[in-house]
């Protein structure tokens, strides 16, 4: 039996667990292709208007699963004892049914660590039984899933890129990585095809009037290009060396690169198509830190000072990592990537804004929606990086002179 796993939402955080689980049960788990325009469009058509972008993308990926006998949509209630996932994810299997092609069976199981490992395992055993698997087999699969997941998370903590870390578990990423490495693309700093902002553009210029949509700007992210760009490739150049700021003096070229934290849900920061390759763009101009690279102890440290604990696991990590980055000098600025319609971000981004303001850390929220245009994103990004850079330079001047 071939079971389909849509490359959206849970994929980005928990796929290794399920890959290990199903592999151990000898069931084939296949993913949908990387997000592309037709996946996005079919998602927008099939999902409810009011829901958030990641759920819409999920609806598209469900359509894009080909040649599978069933669709797997786990109900991830909680992955830690004290927290929940977002309400929309708790209601996922049922509320997305309208996007499931007629006749495609949906497999689901509750994954809830709040109930303790014993009951979680019992739930998985019941699920396994429905697939004709024995309890001992399921227990073993649970173990293997856990190991794979841990391996993935450790790899992320060690600073390996998402693609590098995930490729081990996802054949699609493996083959695109191989192709990318064989091709010439990764020898150049990555760039998305399409109009480049003109060199004379003043940072902070309003270009809202000429926002183009994805299609209009001719943006067609080539999967290989995207993969080849990330993480691998030559080391990050400073912004000056990369020629981003024209007309600066030779001395300034030795400035070290900016350090920027890109935080937000992994299914946004790593969703290269939907975020217009924000991560790749940033990486070509700065050293980028991500939430997944921050250890638990530092997240806890970041959360000190909050009177009440956030109860969503993603939001806790985002706020904890973001606060940690706000306080130290590990990064020069923080970009919070959010999306239109995200309920948990509405709380988290506001809490973090207050922390960042108190710590005088440059902070920007980028909110994606399905109409986000490239020009607007580039302008805001450039303006933020320029502002951060001026700040950094001013501060180092001050400390050098006084």
């Amino acid at each position, binding site marked *: 039996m071939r079971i389909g796993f849509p490359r959206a939402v849970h994929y980005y955080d928990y796929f290794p667990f399920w890959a290990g689980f199903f592999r151990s049960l000898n069931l084939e788990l296949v993913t949908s292709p990387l997000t592309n325009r037709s996946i996005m469009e079919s998602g927008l058509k099939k999902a*409810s208007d*009011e*829901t958030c972008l990641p759920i819409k993308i999920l609806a598209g990926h469900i359509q894009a699963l080909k040649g599978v006998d069933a669709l797997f949509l786990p*109900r991830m*209630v909680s992955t830690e004892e004290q*927290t*929940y*996932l*977002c*309400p*929309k994810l*708790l*209601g996922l299997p*049922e*509320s*997305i*049914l*309208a996007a499931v092609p007629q006749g495609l069976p949906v497999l689901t199981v*509750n994954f809830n660590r709040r109930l303790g490992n014993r009951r979680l395992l019992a739930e998985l055993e019941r699920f396994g039984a429905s697939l004709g698997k024995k309890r001992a087999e399921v227990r073993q699969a649970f173990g293997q899933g856990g190991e794979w997941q841990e391996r993935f998370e450790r790899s992320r903590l060690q600073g390996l890129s998402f693609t590098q870390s995930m490729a081990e578990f996802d054949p699609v990423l493996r083959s695109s990585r191989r192709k990318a490495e064989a091709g010439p693309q990764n020898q150049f700093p990555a760039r998305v095809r399409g109009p480049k902002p003109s060199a004379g553009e003043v940072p902070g210029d309003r270009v809202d009037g000429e926002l183009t949509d994805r299609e209009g700007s001719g943006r067609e992210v080539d999967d290989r290009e995207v993969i080849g760009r990330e993480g691998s490739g030559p080391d990050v150049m400073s912004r000056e060396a990369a020629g981003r700021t024209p007309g600066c003096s030779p001395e300034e070229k030795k400035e070290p690169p900016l350090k920027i934290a890109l935080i937000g849900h992994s299914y946004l920061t790593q969703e290269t198509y939907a975020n217009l390759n924000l991560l790749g763009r940033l990486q070509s101009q700065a050293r980028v830190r991500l939430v997944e690279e921050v250890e638990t102890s530092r997240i806890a440290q970041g959360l000190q000072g*909050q*009177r*009440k*604990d*956030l*109860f*969503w696991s993603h939001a806790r990590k985002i706020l904890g990592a973001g606060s940690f980055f706000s306080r130290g000098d590990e990064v020069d600025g923080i970009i919070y990537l959010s999306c*239109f*319609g*995200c*309920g*948990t*971000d*509405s*709380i988290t*981004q*506001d*809490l973090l804004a*207050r922390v960042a303001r108190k710590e005088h850390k440059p902070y920007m929220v980028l909110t994606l929606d399905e109409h986000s245009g490239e020009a607007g994103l580039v302008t805001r990004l450039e303006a933020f990086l320029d502002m951060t850079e001026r700040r950094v330079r001013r501060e180092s001047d001050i400390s050098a002179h006084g």
Partner: protein
Amino acid sequence: MKVTFPHMGNAWIVIQALFEALDVEVVVPPPSGKGTLNLGTKLAPESACLPLKINLGNYIEAAAKGADTIVITGGSGPCRFGFYGESERQILADAGYDFEVVILEPPGGSLWGLARRIRYLAGSRNSWARIVRAVRFAYEKSVVLDQVEDLIHQARPRFSDAAGAEKLYAIARQHLIESASYESLHRVPVRLAQNIRDSQGDANGSGGKEPLRIGIVGEIYTILEPFASLDVEQQLGALGAEVDRSIYLSGWVGQHIFRGLAQGYRPLRVYSRLAKPYLEHMVGGHGLETVGAAVSFARRGFDGILQLLPLGCMPEIVAAGILPRIQADFSIPIMTLTLDEHTGRAGLQTRLEAFVDLLERRKSGRLKRGSVLSVAGK
């Protein structure tokens, strides 16, 4: 210490009674209005949900009347409401409002912590016995309040002039505010029912025909707070529809505050069983209740269902994704109304009229098939 709290429909009547019974000085915020919302919208993150924005406005207006302490209930998710208290505290503090915020919840699961917070509010002069007595009486008041609201839901479509029912409603609310004993409390609905019967003797608005029945489901704040829903119940009543709702205040109090030890006027726990074929797990807020109540209304032969939700409300977006299946299975029209600070009265009224019109046509269509005689007889 001057305590205030956010508005949610008539809940203030109950909360005020509770604090006054404990001799705690309480500031009831001025009724929520456009100005309230504007104040809140300015401070709140744009993508925050509507109730949080109105809450903030309530606090600021209460601060102008001397309030310095906010009491709000809490929760541990998964919906945003559980974080309202802390979020609001930070927003207010950064805006220069120095409120003490007391969140009534067991912090980190500790009942002892909850007891300490109650003690903090009630002061040392109140014995626990007195606190318990006051809480029980306030709870009873919430049950009676629900009876009053339910009677008004039934009365509205049967009055020929819309103002008549509202007048009786105002009188009953006044009685409720004044009643200080169980005896006087229980007289309130009896008197209201009598008043309704008396005035219907000469005013038979519906012309003897049974009004449409519409079940309101959705997010609790927009259901209970007429300002947030732009008086949707009243508007439907004026259009000749009798409404019932999935949630009444005491049911929420019983479930949310007394953890199911009390059931309230309209118990909520039946809903999860009814929802089961459509949604098997709670999703925070009242998403599960919305689905269950929709099934319940459909089974009870209501003519239509109206779902209310603030823009971006996570649990209700889940429910909204499921309601179309209930609509198809039971062949009952369901309309979803999303509310935010930009919702206009005129647009809303047009949609309600169209909905009522649709339901009426359906209903009369059924009548023609089923009982030609009664139509001819009129």
